[in-house]
């Protein structure tokens, strides 16, 4: 990754140009031609630096409900529970953390009933009854480039 790549990343963390030739518009700001911008972005996607490239929707404006969930998973069940939890499309982020509880994930569901259904299935299939639900009360910040 060189300075031009970093500049492209910085620009794409702001707003993508909504013009007929957006890559040309980006290139004009960085003294790069259109095809260089496209090939650099392709490489950043290919190497995994860029995880997603496109619009980010506001789940609440689309009527969805989100919550952070935590559960303590014993070592011997870990890989099975990871597969189980990760199998839901509505669970978009999942992290193993040090301390207790050790597994933290986010659920975005079309309503609370669907969220509770997912959590009931996870309880039934993991044998872990104690699942902690933390619905958001007030959002102070979601930093755009890391969401």
């Amino acid at each position: 990754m060189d300075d031009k790549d970093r500049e492209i990343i910085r620009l794409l963390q702001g707003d993508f140009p909504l013009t007929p030739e957006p890559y040309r518009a980006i290139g004009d700001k960085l003294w790069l031609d259109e095809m260089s911008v496209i090939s650099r972005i392709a490489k950043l996607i290919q190497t995994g630096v860029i995880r997603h490239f496109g619009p980010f929707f506001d789940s609440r404006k689309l009527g969805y409900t989100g919550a952070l969930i935590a559960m303590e998973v014993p070592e011997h069940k870990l890989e099975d529970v990871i597969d189980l939890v990760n199998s839901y499309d509505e669970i978009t982020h999942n992290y193993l953390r040090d301390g207790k509880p050790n597994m933290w994930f986010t659920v975005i569901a079309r309503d609370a009933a669907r969220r509770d259904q997912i959590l009931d299935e996870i309880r039934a299939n993991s044998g872990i009854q104690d699942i902690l639900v933390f619905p958001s009360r007030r959002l102070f910040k979601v930093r755009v480039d890391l969401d």
Partner: protein
Amino acid sequence: MAEMSIKERNLLKELEGGFKLERSPFKRIARELGYTENEVIETIKKFRDSGVIRRIGIAVRPERIGQSSNALVIWEVPADRVEEVGAVMAARQEISHCYDRETPIGWTGNLFTMVHAKEEAHLTNILNELTEATGLHPVKILRTVRELKKTSMRYFTQEEDES
């Protein structure tokens, strides 16, 4: 729930799949979905202005840009200080997410922050500065051990649609 036509849903579904790297993306989309190029651009702007689209651009993997000591840090903040402390946390460049959350009975800590640091010593420094600024100590510091899943939610694309 935001109102939208089937044609608009189809456009959002196309965009949800991620941008393809092509010189005139909106012209190709317009041709495929029965819009003009200008209508595609104006419709995207409409959803962006109404907030249905929060932003258009990229998400990066933090560990690939040199942030390796990441932690979920939880603070116990009394209701009458949540606005003040939340604003202090949100202003920090190293904090990517800050939420006040409802908590289950018996749980301590309502303000959830994601802190991204270069290394352990940097994380300690950030937390010390936050303690100095707010008078509060973290009640839990849960470092990221392993990223198990990180995807973007699909709102318009059902699994059976994916080819």
